[in-house]
């Protein structure tokens, strides 16, 4: 290899041209389809666990794994949007928990009113984060860190040390089970999640707004120069994320009909894990919700499979952490190749 060559420069001796072409193809694949690597990892994980245990490979278990990834998966959907703009949201779990508490406390004769109030609360909190980021130009990390503390404390004050069981039919609707083809267990929450992922995927990949989001994540200055209203787009991202967190709160109540101020304390980090493992770049402008879907499933598959294989929970955390590092490393190296 020649000396003094900067990282990312493509040079190779003439005799390795064929090899170079093959390597460019791989890195191009990773760049164009950031969800490809995680999907391979997911398939590999499912295969390994099916072989290693005799309870993993079953329809019931697959339903369970998907169910267990619903809440974090929905949080991760909003997180994807914010990370695509080169931001990050540390407050999403806390916002969702506050939403669940409000819904549970207001649940009385009208479940719909409580549901709406919860979603509006999450929307407002998302708007506050967005407002601080766009108008005061504060870094999203700092803004959402502050929001995390304020919102978490506020929800504890609101809950006054208690948790609230929920029995209202509408609020617990997403936990309703029914059986496809008489055999496959599916919940209403799964269907809603699929719908939300589809809607956000469509907005990101097929609309002008979506293109603006990617552009502003890639390079805000360049985006501004091409006439994109950067602040407006950025604010809309935080608003949309807020609404998504409101739906995540609905999912949470559907899964466990009990609003608990102690719940989902690591919801923010878990959602970031799902997004990063799914191939979305922390530096913005690259990735998407399909990868996040895969990322959320991988985390759930790992936990379920390792538990059923008798591996201690702490080793599960180690495995998840290694995956995150590997995913970010892959993204970084693919980025360098593209310069």
């Amino acid at each position, binding site marked *: 290899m020649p000396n003094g060559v900067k990282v990312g420069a493509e040079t190779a001796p003439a005799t390795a041209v064929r090899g170079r072409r093959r390597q460019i193809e791989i890195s191009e694949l990773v760049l164009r389809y950031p969800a490809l690597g995680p999907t391979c990892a997911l398939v590999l994980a499912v295969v390994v666990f099916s072989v290693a245990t*005799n309870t993993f490979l079953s329809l019931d278990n697959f339903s369970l794994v998907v169910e267990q990834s619903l809440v974090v998966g929905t949080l991760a959907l909003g997180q994807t949007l914010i990370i695509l703009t080169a931001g990050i949201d540390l407050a999403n779990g806390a916002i969702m928990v506050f939403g669940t508490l409000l819904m549970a406390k207001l649940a009385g004769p009208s479940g719909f009113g409580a549901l709406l109030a919860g979603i509006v609360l999450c929307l407002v909190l998302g708007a506050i984060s967005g407002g601080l980021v766009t108008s005061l130009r504060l870094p999203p990390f700092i803004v959402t860190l502050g929001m995390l503390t304020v919102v978490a404390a506020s929800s504890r004050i609101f809950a006054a040390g208690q948790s609230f069981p929920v029995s209202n039919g509408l609020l617990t609707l997403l936990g309703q089970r029914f059986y496809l083809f008489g055999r496959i267990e599916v919940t209403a929450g799964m269907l809603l999640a699929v719908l939300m992922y589809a809607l956000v995927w469509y907005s990101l990949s097929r609309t002008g707004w979506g293109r603006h989001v990617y552009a502003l994540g890639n390079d805000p200055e360049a985006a501004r120069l091409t006439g994109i209203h950067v602040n407006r787009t950025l604010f809309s991202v935080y608003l949309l994320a807020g609404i998504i967190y409101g739906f995540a709160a609905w999912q949470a109540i559907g899964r466990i009909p009990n609003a608990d101020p102690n719940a989902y304390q690591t919801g923010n980090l878990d959602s970031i894990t799902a997004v990063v493992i799914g191939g979305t770049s922390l530096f913005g402008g690259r990735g998407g919700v399909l990868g996040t879907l895969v990322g959320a499933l991988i985390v759930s598959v*790992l936990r*379920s499979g390792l538990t*059923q294989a*008798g*591996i201690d929970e702490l*080793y599960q955390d180690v495995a998840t952490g290694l995956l995150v590092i590997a995913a970010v*490393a892959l993204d970084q190296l693919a980025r360098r190749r593209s310069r």
Partner: protein
Amino acid sequence: MGRSSVLTRLLAIGAVAAALLTAACSTERAPSGGGSGAGGGGPVKIGLVTKTDTNPYFVTLRDAAKAAADQQGAQLIALAGKFDGDNEGQVAAIENLVQQGVKGILITPSNSGGIIAALQQAKSRGITVIALDTETDPKDAVDATWATDNTDAGRKQGAYVKAMLNGSAPKLLMVDGTAGAAVDTQRHNGFLEGIGLQNGAPQIIGSANANGDQNLAQQATENLLQRSTDVNSVYTINEPTARGVYVAMAAKNLTAKVAMASIDGGCQAMQDLKGGKYAATVMQFPKKMAQDGVAAVVAFSKDGTKPAGFHDTGSQLITDKPLGGLESKDTGWGQQNCWGS
């Protein structure tokens, strides 16, 4: 440079494979016949879900359950939440246990009301569910409960502190556990019965919630003592709390004039009693809870008799200074029967 692209692909897949191959190579479970719910082949699987797996109380419970299961030829799968109060983690644990085809689930619920839906799901699959150490709310959400009668344990502590006061009017500080927990309320009210006071009585000069944590208890007591050091008795919900209170009291040289006892009966508490940190404690028997729970599940798997009712696994006052005619055992006996190390 070109090689590293292939290397990073391998690195990514390798990290996953490394994590997963440990699963393939080190499964603890003997391969048994049949998947979820199938009867017949293989040992009976029993699930245990504790609040955490770091608190020595739950470690003792888990070890005792494992020993009991091994003795009866059953297989114990032990899971836990991540912290005291982690309802979500316990729900996921129950779901995984159901998935693995357990016959019975023993649980120490972190959130007595929040775990109900998951338990009902398990019951609907023909699994027997048993609460250990803490009741669920409502109590009949489980088939049976093996626990200490916490109200009675509180009463014993209260009666002993009253005897220590020897007739003087109490000036009481109450350092409670996690607000809203059944165990907390029961021990608190039992103590008041034992010492002969009502909630809100003027003799209770201060109270705080320390969630059963030693550091929080120390801080809370320091703050309470800032208001007034005119105290002659303290209620503590458990031994880590009592240790924290002791440090705060010692800093103000109050330990000689304050009557304090506790509840739990850990082996470390036997050392505390000998060192004079507090005068007495009321011992619980988590090993008995675990053993009886395991036996009940094994019996259920053999002939389908469901366990039922509340079973008091008992509490015992331990002190080297017996007072007031109250029945007690000394620390020698305590060290034979304590839990933890």
